[in-house]
Structures are given as structure tokens and as C-alpha cells.
């Protein structure tokens, strides 16, 4: 529902276009902070196809947040062979402005994203910036309120919202502008479990509707649901593949200072005691199935 823009009917040309211009196409991306000697990103390649859900992980300082900002056109790359978001060239100012329209970015701190004096006003903010006519804004805000379950909170002031409600509001505000890509920078880091679930549910809905998603996170349980994981290490891509492949390499996980999903950590502890489970289970269900399948787990 974030993609309510009318588009051409599917033709061989549009199919080819889909393949030829992926939403995110980055080659050799470099970024250096103004006052810094070291580069935050040192030659990152990243390609995200339409509808994909890509997780980006890495230790603090690995460049994840910097990458998220650049993908949204919010900052200027120091250099790149190619840097395009939805076909817009991130190396030019005009391209970046266009990218801000097509790529939505949700940040970590729910408090510092809400501008409006109440939920409704905040949802309208982005659309007002795009100079949409008032009736279209009102209709779109109604849509978002319905889609994100904000009906009761419509007129509520931000400081009276819980963390999860704030982040849901912020997400609705970001997606009020119809987007092709959604980038999330550790959106659940400051939330309690209930708030996390609220936000993750909303993201899954968008994913199911076909939105391309880049999800930066430190929570390994959130990584498991991704189609693909990109792991950064000191500004470079150190790994790219499926979550399963990543977690099946504990030495790599350790080197990159990543954790494991809870099930994986437990399975790893078993492996250390000489009772490995193959393949490495990543969810509670998989762990239970693996244990019940062997002799050391059954409880009855």
C-alpha cells in the first residue's frame, strides 16, 4: 500500500527494466566524514532487487548507519563508480533530492523523528512538503491511520505516546509519501518487546505488499527473516549471502562482532560440548525439531 502510484501494466519492457535498473545499485562507494582521516565506507558494492528484503549488519563503526543515510540520498558520497537509488544518481544533488522522494528512511530514535504537534499533523508533514493538495493529503492521512492502526491516537500529542506508538507513527509518516524503497536504521533498538513487535509487523506488511526493504539491525533474530544479509566490517562488505550461510560460520560471526539468534547461540553451545546440530537451527522451532530428532532432547 506504500506503492499507490499507478504504473504501466506489466510488459516485456517493464520486466527488462525491472531487471536492468534495480532499486539500489551501488559500486565502489566511499564516504569520509569531513573532519576525519579514516573512511567510514571504503568501496562498498551493493545491489538490491525489487521486492527484496536485505538485512545489513556489522559492529558499531562498521558503516551501517552511514550506508543507510547515503541510500536515502541524505548525504553526499565521497566517491563511487556508480551510486543509484531508484535510478537517481546519488552523486548529483538533483539525484539525491529525487532519491529522498523515492527512498524512505526510518531512524532509531522514535522521539527525534516526530515533528507534528499530534499524530495526524506528523503524518501530513511529508506530503505538505511535497505540496500535495489539501484533500489528497487528508485522504492519504486517513489511509495511513487505518493501515497502521493509529485511529485512536490521531489527535494525541507525541509526548503522550509509548515508544512503539511513536515509532509506528514515524513509520507511517515516512510511508505516507509513496515509496519504492524503505530503509530502516535499527528501528527497534530503543523499543520494548511489544513495541518491537508492532514495528516488525508493520514492516512485514509492507514487505508482503512488495516494498523493497533494507533493514539495518543489531538484533540477529530480526536478520533471520531477511532474503539476504550484507555484513560490513570497517567500511567494507565482509560477507554477502543468506542468513543461514552467515550463521553457519561461527568464526566469521565472531570476527565481525555479531551475535547469533538465541537458538543459534544455544546450538553453538551444544557444538562446543561435542553435540553439534546440523544444519545450525536459527529459530526456536528449528531448534526444537533438531533436538527432538536426536536422542538428547525429548522430554517425555
Amino acid at each position, binding site marked *: 500500500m506504500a506503492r499507490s502510484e499507478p504504473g504501466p501494466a506489466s510488459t516485456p519492457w517493464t520486466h527488462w527494466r525491472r531487471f536492468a535498473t534495480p532499486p539500489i545499485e551501488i559500486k565502489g562507494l566511499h564516504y569520509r566524514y569531513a573532519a576525519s582521516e579514516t573512511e567510514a565506507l571504503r568501496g562498498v558494492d551493493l545491489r538490491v532487487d525489487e521486492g527484496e528484503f536485505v538485512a545489513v549488519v556489522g559492529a558499531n563503526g562498521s558503516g551501517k548507519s552511514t550506508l543507510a543515510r547515503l541510500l536515502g540520498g*541524505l548525504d553526499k558520497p565521497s566517491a563511487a563508480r556508480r551510486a543509484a537509488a531508484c535510478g537517481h544518481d546519488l552523486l548529483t544533488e538533483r539525484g539525491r533530492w529525487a532519491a529522498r522522494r523515492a527512498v524512505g528512511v526510518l*531512524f532509531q530514535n522514535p522521539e527525534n523523528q516526530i*515533528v507534528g*504537534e499530534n499524530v495526524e499533523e506528523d503524518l501530513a*508533514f*511529508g506530503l505538505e*512538503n511535497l505540496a500535495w493538495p*489539501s484533500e489528497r*493529503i487528508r485522504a492519504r492521512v486517513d489511509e495511513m491511520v487505518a493501515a497502521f492502526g493509529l485511529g485512536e491516537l490521531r489527535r494525541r500529542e507525541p509526548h503522550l505516546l509509548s515508544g512503539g506508538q511513536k515509532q509506528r507513527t514515524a513509520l507511517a509518516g*515516512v510511508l505516507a509519501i509513496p515509496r519504492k524503497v524503505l530503509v530502516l536504521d535499527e528501528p527497534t533498538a530503543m523499543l520494548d518487546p511489544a513495541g518491537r513487535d508492532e514495528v516488525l509487523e508493520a514492516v512485514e506488511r509492507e514487505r508482503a505488499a512488495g516494498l523493497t526493504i533494507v533493514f539495518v539491525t543489531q538484533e540477529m533474530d530480526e536478520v533471520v527473516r531477511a532474503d539476504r544479509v550484507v555484513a560490513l566490517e570497517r567500511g567494507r562488505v565482509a560477507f554477502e549471502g543468506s542468513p543461514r550461510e552467515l550463521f553457519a560460520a561461527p568464526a566469521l560471526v565472531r570476527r565481525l562482532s555479531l551475535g547469533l539468534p538465541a537458538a543459534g547461540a544455544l546450538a553453538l553451545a551444544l557444538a562446543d560440548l561435542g553435540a553439534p546440530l546440523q544444519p545450525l537451527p536459527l529459530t526456536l522451532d528449528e531448534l526444537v525439531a533438531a533436538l527432538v530428532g536426536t536422542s538428547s532432547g525429548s522430554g517425555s
Partner: protein
Amino acid sequence: MRTAIAQYYPAESALHSRDPRAKFVAVAAVAVALFTRDSFVALAVYGAAALVALAVSRVPLAWYWRGLKPVLWLIALTFVAQLFFVPGRALVALGPLKVSGRGLELASYLSLRLIVLVLVGSLVTLTTSPISLTDAIAWLGRPLRRVRVPTEEIALMMTIALRFIPTLLVETETIMRAQRARGAAFDRGGPLRRARALIPLLVPLFVLSFRRADELALAMEARCYRPGIVRTRMHPLHAGMGDWLLLAIAAAVIVLASLL
């Protein structure tokens, strides 16, 4: 954590539904008129009009009283200053202090005028949501754009400032408590000592505020904001018959007060 600043009391009344620009202009005109002529009769007219508006606004009197409380000291000070220190024939003497007839007259007039002024101001702030007020000010200030005054941006700044006041208050309170738990004392010693004692409060507050500004700016840019753009509004201002009527009534009141 509520403050008295820009206190808004939501309700359904003839005043609440008026265009904020009309309210703003009406009140500004009355405020100016109040000061152009010193006359009890004029003041009585304005006072009566204010009381009528008060009744129409459907806001509980307690809220108007709350708006007066912060300036009570000023009213009292004005009253006392005029009462005792205006020369003239003494009506009553309390030791060395003389209360002159003229003093009593002035004291009453100035105090009452202050009260009417505050009431009239409260009529706007209590019946207009902060965002409508900033919209009104932005619209009224549009001519200033010709001389490069960024009225739109200022209006947005005011909206954001208002939105963050409760947040800032909580943060300040929390920082004070955290530092108090480490033995900081904010209420001891002379002015110099107290100023130094504020450092553990001010540094964190500034750091958090700068970080907030950074993050908020980024979030706003991510939603396609940039200074200088022309923005539409979800609820645009729309002046109707009722608003012109309000302006007409205000004008009538001013004319009446001037003539009597």
C-alpha cells in the same frame, strides 16, 4: 508537566471555530486601542466585550484565572506603585506614605487595564491550537518575505519548539535527578556557586538538544523538507463569514470605546 505557555483548551465554541488570523488581528487591534486612550469608560467597554467573549468561548473560568496568575505580581506592583507614589492631594495617610486621589485613580485604571489585556490575550491562546496560531502568524507575516524574512521557516521553528517543550521539561527533570543522585546540589550557595552547579545540568541538556536537532533535521529531510520550499497544509486556513463578523465586531467595539 503542563506549562501555562500557549495553553490550549479544546472545545466547541464560536470562538474556537474562528480563523486564527481573524482572532489574532482582532485581539491585536484591541490591545493597541487599549493603550491609545486613557479612559475608564473605554476600559469598561473593552472589559465588557472581553467578558462576553469569555462566556462565548466555553472555556472554564479557572483557565483564565490560571493565565492571570503569573502576572498578578506585576498587577500588584503597578497598583502599589501608582497608589503611593503619585503626587496629589492626600486622601488618606499611612505614616509617611500618602494615598492621593489621583494615585488611587491611576492605580485602579492601570491594574484593570493589565487585567483586560491579559484576558484578551488568553481569549486567543485558549481557543486556538498552537499550530493554528503559527499558521496564522506565518500567513500574516508573508509580506515580510519580500524583505527576505523567512516567515515560513520561523513558523515551522515555532511549531517544533512547542512540540518539544514537554519533552525538554521531562529531560531537564530527569537530568537533575540523575545528577542529584551523584551529589549535585542545585539550590545551595550564592549565585556564583549555583551557576557552577548548573554545569552538570546544562552540558547534558545541550548535548542532548544538539543531537536531537541533528536527528530531527535528518528525519525532516528524509521526508522531503528543505528550507525555502512552498508547503501546502492538510488543514488550510479558510476565512468565512463568521471571521469577517468577528473583525467587524472588534472594530465596532473599538469605535464605540473611542467615541464614549
